[in-house]
């Protein structure tokens, strides 16, 4: 079976021990009554009909499959994910021993790689106050949620970058508005680690140029 081994509790378990199901989990009650329904009218029905009836609908069985209720409940900014993963890392470091069990290896890998990726972006230095300030400042520019998110994640510094991220920017924003937007973005959002490096490098170059003078 594609889903792999399941604990040996299947439909048979549900039938044999109805007393186990207290409370009102919709799925369990539904499954039981459906199976009982089949049984009651099952005078002439064969065992195979009953077993195929209960095996047919995986959602009605004991625990059921994993179900995705909403594949797009909310958009997360890179900073939020960075914060979450850093907190998770702290928590796991404190709790100590079980990080290296084979089951946790996947979580370790993905956490490490994602943190490494986000640390190279400007999102590393953001904070909830900065994000709030940014969103308040963005209200006047009338941008969609996706555009604001991209501006927050990338921190564009040139007009070209703004044109890429904002749809139909030529029609919606005039040059002054683009300049104003750039100014808001660069003033509110902190620069990334790369930009800092470049800044240091260009400072060194400037200092060297002054020396012969």
């Amino acid at each position, binding site marked *: 079976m*594609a889903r792999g081994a399941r*604990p*040996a*509790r299947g439909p048979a*378990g549900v039938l*044999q*021990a109805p007393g*186990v*199901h*207290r*409370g009102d*989990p919709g799925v*369990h009650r539904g499954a039981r009554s459906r199976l009982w329904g089949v049984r009651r009218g099952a005078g002439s029905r064969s065992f195979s009909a009953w077993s195929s009836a209960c095996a047919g609908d995986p959602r009605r069985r*004991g*625990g059921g499959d*994993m*179900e*995705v*209720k*909403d*594949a*797009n*409940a909310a*958009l*997360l900014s*890179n900073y939020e*994910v960075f914060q*979450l*993963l850093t907190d*998770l890392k702290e928590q796991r470091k404190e709790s100590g021993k079980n990080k290296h069990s084979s089951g*946790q290896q*996947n*979580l370790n*890998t*993905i*956490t490490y*790689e*994602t943190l*490494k*990726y986000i640390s190279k*972006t400007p999102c590393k230095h953001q904070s909830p106050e900065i994000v709030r300030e940014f969103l308040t400042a963005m209200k006047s520019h009338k941008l969609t949620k*996706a555009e604001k998110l991209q501006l927050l*994640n*990338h921190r564009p*510094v*040139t*007009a*070209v*970058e703004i*044109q*890429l*991220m904002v749809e*139909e920017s*030529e029609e919606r924003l005039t*040059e002054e508005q683009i300049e104003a937007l750039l100014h808001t973005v660069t003033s509110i959002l902190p620069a990334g680690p*790369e*930009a800092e490096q*470049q*800044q240091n490098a*260009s400072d060194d170059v400037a200092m060297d140029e002054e020396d012969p003078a």
Partner: protein
Amino acid sequence: MFVLVEMVDTVRIPPWQFERKLNDSIAEELNKKLANKVVYNVGLCICLFDITKLEDAYVFPGDGASHTKVHFRYVVFHPFLDEILIGKIKGCSPEGVHVSLGFFDDILIPPESLQQPAKFDEAEQVWVWEYETEEGAHDLYMDIGEEVRFRVVDESFVDTSPTGPSSAEAASSSEELPKKEAPYTLMASKRLEREGSPPPLWGAGVAPGCSQSLLAGCALPSLEPHLEERASFASCPSWLQAER
């Protein structure tokens, strides 16, 4: 880049973990099941965001473990269409440029989506963008490790659940391993202009710290003399816009 996905699942806690707090055990189990895995039509799962609701836990006959239905939210990597992302070139092949984000590797920029004109250099196995300027053509190589900015154009999910033995298996020999398909692939484009608008002038995009790679990240040692060119390009956008 990241979205929150609400899911429901039944988590099985074995009896030897009953002494731990239920929430912690469930969080660990969910992470063990989903972290770094691709869920079909959803995306690459990163980590658990929070547990919204815990229903009653049941113990079934024949199995001493408890089964709890959990409603939770998970952080999933699922970029939206037309999102701009920054990644590193992992390699080039005739199929296109393979880009990686570190935690996600299956991003492909097909040749048609590269800035034209582009050609594949067989000797070095890299894609080259032949950039025309007044001074002449410059070949900008897409080397491995260079940072590139790209736009997500398409995504494809492949259901990689194992299938049963097929009758065709007798035909294929045992030496042939089944082709491993990536469960989640992104198609990207380096033509970052939107439909109908003229391409932005790349030189203008090159500012200190800007990772619009081809000019900034190019590993050509002769890049330094081109620095003067960058300064002149920076004045171009207004010229371009005036033309429109």
